[in-house]
């Protein structure tokens, strides 16, 4: 028994001596904690960048510009024989389930991040970080308004593709709610934009510091309000058959055409944005001769093109861009990074020449080949024609050495606004123009497209103004810039103007949907070549889909059937 006592005494000592929890406490040295986040302007800067980061989608089909381009009537599927998915999207077939899931989840990621800023910023005390409480308040107004805009931006992205979607507008909102109606969703978008316009300080664009380029501002919110108004009223009237002239608000009110026109008038009179004198100087091909130090694009030399750049009014390269209002910013990619190819503009890669690596137009995957109808019906006198469409087999365009028969849906025309641009690097090889401009170390042709994608430019403000007011002033300003004579307003004239001004900018698809033209836009047959074999091309738009894509199947299953699938899918 003595031994047993001995045993118990010793073991008790052992147990007591190893004082448990001190070995279990850990400190997180490689991340911040949610509890203390959103408390300083630095946190907010980082979190706001996080909101914008949700614009990127790993799956290329979830990229707004790519999806809208493939579905539009002015671009075909293209690509190689193995690029089935591009052709499926182009032909309104569901390529595979979950094609657009990244768009869905990334939009909600952006929305949740914006919700946190909207809720947490008002409570934070930023006065120690600024000279005066007024400046601190102005800073808060900017970030809250900007977060509201970005939330509207993401809901608008969702609504354009999917229709009504679940509305999550606070941190603690339940996530398993059903899809809101189309009208409820747009009411949320309109209300957020309205509050953003009312909240963001009204600093004109030239007075906004260059370091803020890429952030949304009051004028961008005003322009988006017009876009949302036109889309909603058009969709309800022409697709749903419910004639609608007002944009609803969450509180039960609504915005009329006159309200929206007032926003546009405000934007036109006070924003400081203006048209770039030469339309073609918006696009990077206008800089390639300067970058190369040689006349690699004879046409640009003849036309005296000179790029305005893409970092705002005081860009690193180019003369200053006062037209571009809101963009998806792109840089270079790296395969070593997680999803390392999403930071480069894949529209440039995917719609560039297939299996042809020319100077200055480099190689891409040949998706979204251009409908030849656009080329043949477009007046040669309009400089935007050659400024938008890349014609192959033309020495003046640097495409004389184009070798055909490399891809499908080949029409001989490619996207010139967003494409691969390259020239010699002085050692006998070719490298991407942006790689050389920014002296980037990785010259991979898939990762070299540091061209921003323009969501909104001032020309759209002018054309939307014309369309909402039914007046020709804005439209004629755009025509004047293109060297075209003034005309009187008609919807048909405006439609044509938008087609020519914004081709391949991801707007056409949504325009034909809201005008209701989508139901007839695809009644055509083209002769194309599929990897050298002549074939006919005729897309099969299904009116029952009402211009919407499918809700990701996995989301429908995860919702336990709470989400109703869109018609036709």
């Amino acid at each position, binding site marked *: 028994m003595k031994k047993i006592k001995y045993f118990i005494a010793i073991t008790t000592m052992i147990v007591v001596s190893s004082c448990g929890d001190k070995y279990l406490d850990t400190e997180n040295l490689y991340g911040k904690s949610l509890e203390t986040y959103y408390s300083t302007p630095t946190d907010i800067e980082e979190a706001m960048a996080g909101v914008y980061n949700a614009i990127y989608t790993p799956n290329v089909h979830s990229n707004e510009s790519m999806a809208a381009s493939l579905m539009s009537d002015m671009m075909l599927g293209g690509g190689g024989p193995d690029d089935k998915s591009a052709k499926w999207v182009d032909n309104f077939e569901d390529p595979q389930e979950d094609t657009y899931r990244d768009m869905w989840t990334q939009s909600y990621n952006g929305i949740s991040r914006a919700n946190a800023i909207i809720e947490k910023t008002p409570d934070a005390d930023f006065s120690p970080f600024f000279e005066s409480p007024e400046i601190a308040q102005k800073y808060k107004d900017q970030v809250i308004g900007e977060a509201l805009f970005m939330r509207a931006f993401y809901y608008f992205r969702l609504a354009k593709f999917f229709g009504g979607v679940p509305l999550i507008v606070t941190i603690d909102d339940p996530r398993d709610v059903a899809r809101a109606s189309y009208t409820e969703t747009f009411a949320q978008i309109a209300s957020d934009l309205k509050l953003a316009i009312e909240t963001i300080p009204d600093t004109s664009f030239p007075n906004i510091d260059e370091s803020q380029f890429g952030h949304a501002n009051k004028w961008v919110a005003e322009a988006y309000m017009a876009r949302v108004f036109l889309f909603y009223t058009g969709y309800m009237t022409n697709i749903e058959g419910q004639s609608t002239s007002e944009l609803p608000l969450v509180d039960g009110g609504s915005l009329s055409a006159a309200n929206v026109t007032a926003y546009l008038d405000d934007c036109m009179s006070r924003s400081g944005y203006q048209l770039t004198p030469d339309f073609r100087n918006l696009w990077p091909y206008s800089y390639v001769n300067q970058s190369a130090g040689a006349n690699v694009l004879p046409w640009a030399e003849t036309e005296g093109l000179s790029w305005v750049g893409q970092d705002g009014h005081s860009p690193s390269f180019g003369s200053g861009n006062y037209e571009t209002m809101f963009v998806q910013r792109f840089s270079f990619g790296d395969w070593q990074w997680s999803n390392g190819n999403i930071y480069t503009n894949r529209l440039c890669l995917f719609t560039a020449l297939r299996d042809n690596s020319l100077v200055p137009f480099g190689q891409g995957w040949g998706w979204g080949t251009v409908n030849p109808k656009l080329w043949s019906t477009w007046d040669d006198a309009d400089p935007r024609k050659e400024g938008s469409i890349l014609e192959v087999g033309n020495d003046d365009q640097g495409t004389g050495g184009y070798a055909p028969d490399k891809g499908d849906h080949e029409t001989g025309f490619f996207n010139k606004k967003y494409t691969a641009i390259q020239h010699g690097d002085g050692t006998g090889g070719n490298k991407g123009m942006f790689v050389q401009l920014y002296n*980037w*170390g990785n010259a991979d042709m898939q990762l070299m497209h540091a061209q921003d994608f323009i969501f909104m430019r001032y020309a759209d403000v002018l054309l939307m103004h014309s369309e909402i007011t039914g007046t020709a002033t804005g439209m004629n300003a755009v025509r004047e810039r293109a060297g075209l004579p003034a005309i009187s307003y008609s919807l048909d004239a405006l439609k044509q103007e938008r087609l020519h001004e914004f081709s391949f900018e991801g707007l056409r698809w949504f325009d034909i949907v809201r005008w209701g033209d989508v139901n007839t836009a695809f009644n055509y047959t083209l002769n194309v070549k599929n990897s050298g074999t002549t074939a006919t091309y005729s897309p099969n738009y299904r009116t029952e889909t009402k211009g919407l894509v499918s809700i*990701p199947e996995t989301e429908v299953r995860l919702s336990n059937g709470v989400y109703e699938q869109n018609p036709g899918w």
Partner: protein
Amino acid sequence: MKIRFLKGIYSLAFFMLCSFAHAQSVSGTISDASGPLPGANIAVKGTVNGTISNFDGEYTLNGVSSDAVLVFSYVGYVSQEVSVGNKSLINVILVEDANSLEEVVVVGYGVQKKALITGASVNLKGEDIAALNTGTAMEALQGVAAGVNITKNSGQPGAGTRVTIRGLGTIGNSNPLYIVDGVAVGDIDYLNSSDIASIDVLKDAASSAIYGSRAANGVVLVTTVKGRKDSPAKISYDTYYGVQNVYKNLDPLNAQEYMYIMDEGRVNDGFAPNDWQAILSDNPWLENNYPGLGTQLGEEIWDKLQNGWEGTNWINEMTQDNAPVQSHAINITGGSEDIIYSFGASYLEQEGMIGGNITNAGFKRLTTRLNTQMVLKKNEEHAIVTIGENFTYTNTENRSVAAGNIYWNDLHNALVQNPLQPAYWQQSIDSNVNEFGFTPTLDGLNTGQTNPLAVLNYRHNYNYGKGNKVIGNVFLEIEPIKDLKLRTSYGIDSWFGHNRSMNPTYHLGLLYSDDVDGAQQSQYLGSNWTWSTTASYDRELGDHKLNVLLGTEVLQNQINNEVGGSRNNLLFPGNPKYAYVNNTQSPESVSDINTWGADWAAGGGGLVSYIARAQYNYKEKYLFSATVRADGSSNFAKGNRWGTFPSVSAGWIMSDEDFMSGTSDFLDFTKIRASWGQNGNQSIPNFIYSSQIAYVFPGYFFGDTKPVSGTTSYPAKVTNPDVTWETSEQLNIGFDARLFNSKLGVTFDWYKKTTIDWLLEAPILGTSGAGAPFINGGDIENRGIELVLNWNENIGDFKYGVTFSGSHNKNEVTRIANTDGIIHGPSHVLSQGTSEVSRVEVGQPIGYFYGYETDGLLQNQDEVDAYVKPTDGSPYFNDLRPGDVRFVDQNQDGLIDEADKVYLGNPNPDFEMGIQLNLEYKGFYANTTLAGKFGMQVMQSYRSFADSFDQNYTSDIFNRWHGEGTSNTIPRLSTISNRNTQYISDIYMHNADYLRINNLTVGYTFGEILKEMNAPISNLKVYAAVNNLHTFTNYDGMDPEVRFGHDASWASGIDLGLYPQARTVMFGLSVDF
């Protein structure tokens, strides 16, 4: 020992006095396989006369009559009886008793007599493992340990194994817990088989519950070789040399076959056949960059083809015949009365069959080990203070080639590369296209088809790195009073190493060029420590025996440092000797420089545990054991950190009962066992419970700072502070029996293992707005039976043994806590653009194959016409033709869509078996081990059927459909993507049952002869062995054992062209001094 020895001398003297007059004196030496055996018993049968062998194994026994029989015995050895006759010298070699019930086996924090074990475990001896000459010890367990599924990750040297004990219980980390001499380690591949004394695999929950939180996947206990008390130094040297060859190679099409098959695809689609001459000569990239060469290359190839050249067999170009493997191991063991020691040093060098002669691919491992133990204080009965250490140092160099998915697999590259491109081209060197003469891309054929040898070379040749491990422990054992043992042990698991690589420049095609060179260097260093303290006490009260153990254990992450950096633009381009970061030009842009550094253990973290165990038996007949372990893990939030894992087990040795006496003439031993217990799993990353703000890189780009992004962060995951232990619960019922004088052994087990609160990242609704959290969100059930039969018999000098083991396991996921009930596998696995192949889903086994069921091919137009929708009688597809696949419309809704996808197969075997045969006759011996797995399937695709139509085929394509009745499995050829191959269906699936002769060894032991020659060598053994001698299978791929599962660790059975298994022929030698 000294006491017993003295007693022996006294008694010897006593007998000398008493019985001198009647009889003779007998003397001799007693030894075992490894040398003299001190302390063995020698007794005259039927008398009290006896003695004990001395330090040198020698004995002398007086007063033995000539008709007496001497009995030589030693615990753990088979006793031998020898008639004295007129012999005065009797030397005996005792043989260890494999079926000994007296033998002790390692259990957690102690040892136990094998007969008294109440759980389910497997015990293997180091020498049996070493005899199989496998690169790693775990490979040797294949087919040897029932219920332990061993799959080689690939045939690549140093690739390691996947070990699954009693079925997959998680889709996370399913590795068992490895404990070497009490120290938890990640795996045991750092040990040479010669370092291992024994491996004990604890399979049931009750056996492993003493390891609590980390034991849900089972426990592998390894004991390294220890010295032996009172024995002179035994020096042994083991070596083998072998050559490896690809066991079974695939047969890609040659140039003529390739062109024929490509053309057939085009003709099937209504296109004209290819103009091969034009295609070969149209190489715009080459022509543009090296004017004239593009055409010249094509014309040279065309000329060669006209002269009967059959093209390049890329697999042959990439593989090396007779890749050597060699191993050397020295072991020194011994001990004095108070000190025992064991020293080991070994070296393994294995060249790779693939890339071995291009990039010097291969695996090298050097290990050294020193185990010592010394008694510092003792009294007459027992040692009081003992200290010791066990340390192993390992240095490895692994130069590997890519063996992963279709984008990272050198063998797959070789399989799919067109045979028209020569491997090397002199003009390539002469015109400065490529210094090694690799032929540039034939981009007229396909810009994406880069020379696979160039890819192998540039991807792997310029990486240099070595890894080191120091693993071991020091311990102190105090026995202040008899049978009360206090033991404390401090162990470390540490690693360090360095890597260096050169990023070369090359230009071989439009899509295979790199202009920017650079150098990268990195170093890492890490260590975890474990401090265990236990107190155990044995108490005997009459027929009652009780053993109690209490203890604590703390494991801490001490350091896990990694730093590195890279810079572009080498000062000495193309020369890897100078490829150091300092030898680069000053960076011109931010992308020219990259650095990183973190100590992942700096924030702390670890485990704290309390252990208790009680073992009780009555007359060694009724056995009970109970354990409980409480673990705290820093991976969970405060409040959820602690988990308690209890277990109970019981055994009944029925054969000791009186009522069994009727069977005792054939039934030597019967034990019935039952156990129940719980184990935990905590293997999730730290801080998962709190919402982490994650920094992303790149983030977003504001202002004119491109290409540098601003700092960007967001909440990484939805918060789940409630996440806690995953628990695995297992019920085990079994019995052990020995029959016919222990010639026949039978072990049977039935188990049911349920994993509850399974830790997983289940997909969540996109509206959640952040990544999916880890949740305790699922249940899995594994049920199975295991049977081991062994037979050992000696017929005169002829000894033989047979062991058969078989196991069956059924795996089923019973709950996933989201409404989808599915965890999806990756897409783009078999081809770019194809959907998922593997899934985890409720009601199915983990990683089952998912896709369309097919009903053969449409053989003719009548069958095409008959393949119509049940709904309206119209065809399922508008473009159906004979030779197309007939997909099954499961729900008969007239659509072949997602709803028609079903379970196709299971990569996990239903049944596994192993057979071992051992024969021995007068020094000659032969051993063989067979392992088989049955009832599993493999998804096979050696090319991207659904896209990339220029990729080569294997000669299997000759079995394609090309007319009615020619095939019912391989659809017609095509040059465009079509659903026949785009849809994942059972046309890709194959049964992969196999039985493999893992090892056959034939050898000779010179034991007796050496003794007679009085050689300084105590033992000499020579042998020849073949590993992977033959595989009996109907599977037509390289190997039916397919670990690869793409990006999902839980998936397996996806054969995209594996690193093939070697057949290795070896010659070996063992010598003891």
